[in-house]
């Protein structure tokens, strides 16, 4: 009898094992949308994630403030002087802006924002750490859809890979599954920027032509060729250049402009109106309108 029970339990394990292996291989391909169960779990965990995320942010800030109190005092004094100086400059700039507006109207130009954005908070990360995906507190209800680009200040963060009514999941550019079309800003060489790993937080740059001229310090911007990311978003800066496979061409390591370890807020680009000026490096804040 005991043997029967033990063997039955082993069979139970074997059945679950093969069932899970099947599910793994079925879900390994990129899916168009999440299952109902996944949506429900994301929705159910959202309040908890937001709550814990808020507490962790608060503790992080408190610890940082205590550790940097001397530096903050010095900076405060410097900033007070800087504010006084900048106030004077601001007055001057607002005069220039007013003059600029008048001139634009005269020339018949319309000031159009390059794209609309939705600000979102990072409330979680892949708990299993198998991918480096980020969980945002904005979803379908806020206008976020699959494949929308995500930026932070001056740099590209990644793209939305799944959405629930109130959350969304972002695949960052440092994830090995991510690939973004890029342009070397100095030379206009086209390249593919692939994620390396979440631990190193770097990307690999693979130029499309073997005679591409790559140098440390070159800035990489999105090419807009894939149809997902608008052209001109800053991806990062080359920090290392090495010989390509079989010593043909060059490869490079790119340090993303975004610090993924400290990422707390992002902007999701909700409209796909492409930026106009070719080759301009546009930051999320400098050109977004929906913040």
């Amino acid at each position, binding site marked *: 009898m005991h043997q029967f029970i033990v063997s039955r*339990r082993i069979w*139970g*394990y074997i059945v*679950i*094992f093969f069932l*899970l*292996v099947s*599910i*793994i*291989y079925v*879900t*390994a391909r990129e899916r168009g949308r*999440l*299952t109902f*169960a*996944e949506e429900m*779990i*994301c929705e*159910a*965990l959202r309040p*908890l*994630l937001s*709550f*814990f*995320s808020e*507490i*962790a*942010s608060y503790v*992080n800030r408190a610890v940082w403030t205590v550790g940097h109190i001397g530096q903050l005092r010095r900076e405060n004094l410097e900033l007070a002087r800087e504010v006084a100086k900048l106030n004077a400059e601001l007055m001057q700039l607002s005069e220039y802006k007013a003059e600029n507006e008048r001139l634009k109207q005269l020339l018949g130009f319309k000031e159009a924002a390059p794209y609309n954005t939705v600000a979102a908070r990072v*409330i*979680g*990360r*892949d*708990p*299993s*750490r*198998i*991918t480096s*995906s980020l*969980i945002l507190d904005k979803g379908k209800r806020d206008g976020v859809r699959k494949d929308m680009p995500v930026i932070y200040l001056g740099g590209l963060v990644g793209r939305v*890979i*799944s959405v629930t009514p109130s959350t969304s*999941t972002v695949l960052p550019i440092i994830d*090995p*599954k991510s690939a973004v079309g890029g342009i070397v800003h100095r030379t206009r060489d086209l390249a593919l920027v*692939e*994620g*390396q*790993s*979440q*631990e*190193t*937080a770097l990307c690999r740059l693979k130029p499309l032509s073997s005679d591409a001229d790559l140098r440390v310090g070159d800035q990489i911007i999105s090419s807009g060729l894939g149809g997902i990311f608008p052209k001109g978003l800053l991806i990062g800066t080359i920090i290392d250049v090495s010989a390509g496979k079989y010593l043909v061409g060059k490869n490079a390591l790119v340090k993303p402009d975004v610090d*993924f*370890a400290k990422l707390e807020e992002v902007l999701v680009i909700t409209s796909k109106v492409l930026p106009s000026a070719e080759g301009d490096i546009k930051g999320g804040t400098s050109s977004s309108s929906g913040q």
Partner: protein
Amino acid sequence: MKYGKVLRLVSRVLTLFFAVALESAVIPRFAPPGVHADLVLILVILYSLDRGLLAGLGWGLAGGLLEDMLAGGVIGISALSKVTCGYLAGAMHEILFRDNLVVPTLLVAMTGIIKVAITLGLCISLGMLDGSLLHFIRVEIYSLLLTVFLTPAVAIWVAFSGNWEASHVGTEA
């Protein structure tokens, strides 16, 4: 008695949700990049030691699927590794002396290695391991050490909540 079982189940499911939320939202902010503490693994081991093989299978499956579904990626990798760990820990249910902190801590360390091996094997077979193997192993070792370090604290919490359940139902948790 029935009420006690329901209360214990609800309490453990809630603890599992809390653990996943902590893993996802809090620990990544304080740990080095990539390093994570597997609180769900600790809970699966503790519940399996407490209740046996079937509980090991059930909690391993539930905890792993919860993690997989929250991540929105491949479903089943965490579930498979945790079902295996839960099953192995559940098999020790009647052999090991459970009322101290050393046994679950050692068991978490051992099953943690098995979990890493299963995850690594699946990642390689699915082509998901693009980074270096050494790097993956190094990060997983740090993560395992952090998980083992946190095991006594989680075990004390689980024992405390078990006592609370028992005091509210009047039965042994």
